[in-house]
């Protein structure tokens, strides 16, 4: 079937190129905002969901599930309290527990969190689709004063194997209380994971204990920094407390039972959470803000589409002669109608395409910054089915909005005949 007006609609719109360009720019910016918000939201969600897998339970001091998840896995916020080593040992020995990984947080190195753990962390921790941690260089720590760096921490701070780092009290980028007398040697650098692991400095639990000798009250005592490494190694460096621990079970079926058992543990106020459930709670908390943001950006798209309508409506009168000429050449009224609808759809389609391209370019440039600053590796930033739906939807919506001016032009063309009667 021949469709004679589409090419005319495009050329007519391009003939008014300044107006057309501004209209398409408005649509492009609105679509870029909408797609950008959605892609960042979906990318961040995917990144969060891929941060931990294969862990059945996370146990920490009694707190909300979201809070425990955020500080233990995402290194966001602070733990409410610690849990005792005895409780950890007791739970680790429960039947059905395949492995446990202790986590000790609270110190930092140049703004990167330092996490005390054991070698089991590198063996059992999984992210994404149960992917294990892999070493880009070196190996897991074997000595008290050895450290393994996440990929981003090593890259940003310029560390390589054999470098020495000192750990500071607290989590700030600048600290006034550093354990300079007990440096750690970098023995391993992990491959990038796109998770907060990349921004973590991993040291042995015993190392955390060692650098805090003389700091038991939270402030430096005369004992701090007076012991040699040999004297430190000779001491019992088993921690009294840890921040949290991860549990892997022989069978996930046992998770609910063990969770209930831990949550009602009489010896200490503990919370056990399932990572997936806690994540779902997290999404429900931020879902309202998410939906609000999407609604706002959808309204911006509506504003962009309104500019298409305004652009066409304001051009109608000056184009009555064009319509009369087309009618004289044999164009039917529906051709005139279709011309206006096609023009609206064309402006919106090109605008939406440009908006999508803007998003791809912008996010490609912003993604490394996001990863460096927040440890969030945004995924799915390229073209996808959702983008096609948005571009199609915007084009369709513009075509529908074009029905109004098209009807007006249709009526004009019937009234004007072969000449213009203004």
């Amino acid at each position, binding site marked *: 079937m*021949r469709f*004679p007006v589409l090419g*005319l609609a495009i*050329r*007519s719109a*391009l*003939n008014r190129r300044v107006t057309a360009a501004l209209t398409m720019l408005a649509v492009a910016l609105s679509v870029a905002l909408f797609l950008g918000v959605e892609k960042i939201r979906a990318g961040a969600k995917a990144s969060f969901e891929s941060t931990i897998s294969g862990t059945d339970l996370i146990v920490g001091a009694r707190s909300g599930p979201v809070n425990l998840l955020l500080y233990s896995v995402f290194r966001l916020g602070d733990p409410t309290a610690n849990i005792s080593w005895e409780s950890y040992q007791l739970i680790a020995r429960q039947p059905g527990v395949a492995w446990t990984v202790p986590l000790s947080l609270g110190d930092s190195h140049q703004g990167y969190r330092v996490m005390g753990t054991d070698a089991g962390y590198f063996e059992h921790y999984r992210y994404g689709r149960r992917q294990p941690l892999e070493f880009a260089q070196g190996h897991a720590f074997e000595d008290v004063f050895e450290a393994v760096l996440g990929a981003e921490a090593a890259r940003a701070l310029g560390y390589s194997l054999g470098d020495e780092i000192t750990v500071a009290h607290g989590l700030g980028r600048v600290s006034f209380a550093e354990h300079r007398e007990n440096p750690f040697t970098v023995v391993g650098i992990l491959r990038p994971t796109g998770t907060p692991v990349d921004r973590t400095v991993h040291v042995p639990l015993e190392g955390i204990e060692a650098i805090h000798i003389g700091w038991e009250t939270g402030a430096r005592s005369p004992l701090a920094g007076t012991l040699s490494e040999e004297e430190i190694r000779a001491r019992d460096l088993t921690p009294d407390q840890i921040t949290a621990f991860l549990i892997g079970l022989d069978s996930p079926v046992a998770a609910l039972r063990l969770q209930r058992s831990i949550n009602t543990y009489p010896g200490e106020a503990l919370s056990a959470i399932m990572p997936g459930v806690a994540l779902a709670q997290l999404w429900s908390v931020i879902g309202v803000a998410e939906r609000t943001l999407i609604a706002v950006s959808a309204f911006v798209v509506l504003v962009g589409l309104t500019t298409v309508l305004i652009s066409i409506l304001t051009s109608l009168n000056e184009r009555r*002669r*064009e319509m009369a*000429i*087309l*009618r*004289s*050449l*044999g*164009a*039917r*009224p529906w*051709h005139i109608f279709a011309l206006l609808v096609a023009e609206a759809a064309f402006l919106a389609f090109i605008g939406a395409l440009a908006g999508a391209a803007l998003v791809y370019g912008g996010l490609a440039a912003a993604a490394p910054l996001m990863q460096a600053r927040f440890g969030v590796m945004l995924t799915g930033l390229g073209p996808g089915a959702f983008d096609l739906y948005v571009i199609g939807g915007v084009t369709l919506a513009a075509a529908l909005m074009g029905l109004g001016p098209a009807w007006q032009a249709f009526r004009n063309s019937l009234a004007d*005949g*072969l*000449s213009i009667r203004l």
Partner: protein
Amino acid sequence: MSAEPPAPAVVIRDLRFAWERGGPPLLDIPEFVVGAGERVFLRGPSGAGKSTLLGLIAGVLSPGSGSVSVLGRAVSDLGPARRDQVRADNIGVIFQLFNLLPYLSVLANVTLPCRFSAARAARAGDVEAEARRLLKRLGFSDPALLAAKAAELSVGQQQRVAAARALIGSPGLIIADEPTSALDADSRNAFISLLIEECEASGAALLFVSHDAGLSAHFDRAEDLTRLNRAERTGRAA
């Protein structure tokens, strides 16, 4: 056995038309005929209803009563869609100034009617080649000029492109609505001669409308709308 004589290009009988239902008629024409291949000059002062009459012949407007036939088709009895089809297939129109689409090239302007009429496209054959041929006869042989936008042409060039556009696909009737009003005397006479030559070549009838009675010598016959139109005579014209 002799061939059937071709149907007249235009036959109007007892035509009455008013812009408002029940209002005073602008046109009240008992009879007006343009024979097949005939070249008729229709003059009348501004406001006499010339453009309205052309709209009725082209089937864009409908008469209040009476009949309008074009090349044997009673367009006044047809529905809007069929009238549009008859116009697209059989009528070429030349306007006054600015009657080309400024954003299209010369060639695209000329081939435009064939987009809306399969019959004209079929009669033209290779539409672009036919457009080039017509344009060449009308003085456009420079390829750069064929690709130029209509807005870049002089008034005289635009009129010749408009003529080529009206003639493409060999419509049986060419309607020219004051096409020379913006041309000087020499250009005007040259344009009319060229137009008549092309109509003769394609066998099309020509209905040429103007308020300038001095042009009538070029045509087979001249009619005065003020005499054809009883409404005008009785002082009921709009």
